[in-house]
């Protein structure tokens, strides 16, 4: 996704309601000032604490937040602050094309029609009566990573459009069987009820294989920015295809060539042809600690830690290099390793205080190895930008500061 910040900003200044709401939202998020808060008591054992409350919040001393883009159309997960493999719903990245709609679930409907024997309209209550499925999966925006090549200083700025959560919903294959798919059907068209009415075509084979219509995320209702009350979750495929605020599934004979699968989310090759329907996210890994913008306290032991994932299955191996790619050693993988999910890796390292370049590379269950940027430019030229997943090197300077070595 090639964002043009200055153009977008100018547009927002002209925009009416939606733009104004974004600006107001951004202001509110920054208004919590720690200076006005009461300090914590010197000894918390000397007085009773606060009573229970109905909906939990993290400690007021925890400040990790998503980075909102200047345009209000996305916010990035603070990957450097995550532990383990689950992204809390409040920190799951968001990306939308016309704002987050406000939807009353009691009035929301899903229409299934097209090449089916029994077109259906379902309420949310009815959708939740079907047998349910829960799965842990990463989701990555098609445009994630591209900023790491240009301006990004941190892992959050460069790669924060990826997160991992437990998703619960109903199998789309089950709903399609319920509607009775007719012969001649090869694709579905999924459509959201946001102001962009985001629409994507999905091959029927994938739709009936493992796609979920999700209404829950990490144990509670999915967040509005994730598609409340219903989103299509397409495991391992680029995030844009996971239509949020889902209102319609049409079973059709061919892809509908929507704007988001022709004009956008396609990649130009050097000869002027464009690759289309790049669905699966390739194997990718990142060291999240130490990473860009952080500062090491001095020579000594550090646990290098990071995340790896592949849209095609399980991560089999992650290797770490601390000498600019000359030698590589296996990192320890957190178990269980879940297919199409974040895999946490860890690698104990003794920093000698000298300049160092650290990086990770992963291999998935099919033997596909995460490439370098040079490998990708060789294969695709310079005019592409989606599915940007090369090895990310971080340069540690002698003062302990960590820089993005890809930019």
């Amino acid at each position, binding site marked *: 996704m090639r964002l043009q910040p200055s153009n977008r900003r100018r547009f927002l200044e002209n925009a009416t309601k939606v733009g104004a709401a974004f600006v107001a939202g951004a202001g509110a998020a920054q208004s919590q000032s720690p200076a006005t808060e009461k300090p914590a008591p010197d000894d918390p054992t000397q007085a009773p604490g606060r009573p229970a409350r109905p909906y939990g919040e993290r400690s007021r001393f925890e400040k990790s937040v998503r980075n909102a883009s200047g345009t209000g159309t996305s916010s990035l997960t603070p990957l450097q602050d995550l532990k383990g493999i689950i992204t809390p719903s409040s920190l799951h990245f968001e990306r939308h094309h016309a704002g987050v709609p406000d939807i009353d679930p009691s009035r929301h409907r899903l229409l299934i029609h097209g090449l089916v024997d029994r077109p*259906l309209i379902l309420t949310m209550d009815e959708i939740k009566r*079907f047998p349910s499925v829960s799965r842990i999966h990463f989701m990555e925006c098609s445009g994630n990573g591209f900023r790491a090549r240009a301006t990004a200083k941190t892992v959050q700025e460069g790669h924060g459009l990826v997160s991992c959560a437990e998703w619960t919903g109903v199998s789309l294959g089950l709903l399609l069987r319920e509607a009775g798919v007719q012969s001649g059907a090869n694709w579905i068209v999924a459509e959201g009820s946001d102001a962009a009415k985001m629409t994507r075509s999905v091959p029927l084979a994938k739709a009936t294989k493992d796609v979920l219509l999700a209404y829950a995320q990490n144990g509670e209702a999915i967040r509005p920015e994730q598609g409340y009350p219903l989103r299509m979750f397409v495991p391992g495929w680029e995030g844009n295809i996971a239509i949020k605020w889902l209102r319609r599934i049409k079973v059709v004979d061919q892809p509908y060539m929507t704007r988001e699968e022709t004009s956008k989310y396609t990649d130009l090759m050097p000869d002027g042809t464009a690759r289309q329907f790049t669905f699966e996210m390739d194997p990718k890994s990142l060291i999240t600690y130490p990473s860009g913008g952080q500062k090491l306290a001095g020579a000594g032991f550090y646990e290098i830690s990071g995340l790896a994932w592949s849209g095609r299955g399980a991560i089999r191996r992650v290797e770490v290099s601390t000498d600019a790619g000359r030698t590589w050693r296996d990192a320890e993988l957190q178990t269980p390793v879940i297919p199409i999910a974040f895999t946490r890796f860890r690698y104990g390292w003794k920093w000698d205080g000298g300049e160092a370049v650290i990086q990770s590379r992963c291999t998935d269950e099919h033997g596909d190895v995460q490439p370098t940027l040079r490998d990708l430019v060789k294969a695709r030229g310079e005019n592409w930008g989606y599915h940007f997943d090369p090895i990310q090197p971080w340069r540690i300077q002698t003062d302990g500061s960590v820089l993005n070595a890809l930019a």
Partner: protein
Amino acid sequence: MRSLSACALMLALSGALPAQSPSYGFGRPPKPEEIYGWDIAISPDGKELPPGSGTSAAGATVYAAKCAACHGKTGKEGPNDRLVGGQGTLNTKKPVRTIGSYWPYATTVWDYINRAMPFDKPGSLSADDVYAITAYLLNLNDIIPAGQVIDAKTLPQVKMPNRNGFIGDPRPDWVSPH
């Protein structure tokens, strides 16, 4: 006999029920008007296009009022996505992707304007307006002549310059010398 009972066992284990009859009975059939109001995705053959028509002359007026503020007076000036020009640039170092140079189907232009534009008031344009703006943008890109009427029949027949410019994706496409 053995294969029949194995089949029945598999069905019982997987919870699967016969494929072509409803198993749960939730939901209801939609009314025709409920489908019609939402059936707005336009296929390349244009079968969902509604009645109506427009020409580039009519489109110029609507475009100036509803589109030019974001896309520029002639579709080239921005500040938002450029809509006009760029033909012949896709294989250069600075490709310019517009409706004229990049979009493979004219039906997508109609679909997207109808579904999402204008950005601050999507869904506010009439079918005639959308046909007219589409005709105007196709004419600005030298794809149709000025007088051509664009409607449900003519739009799917418009041949876009980059119609054959899209290819599948052969990933994994990189060679790792690791």
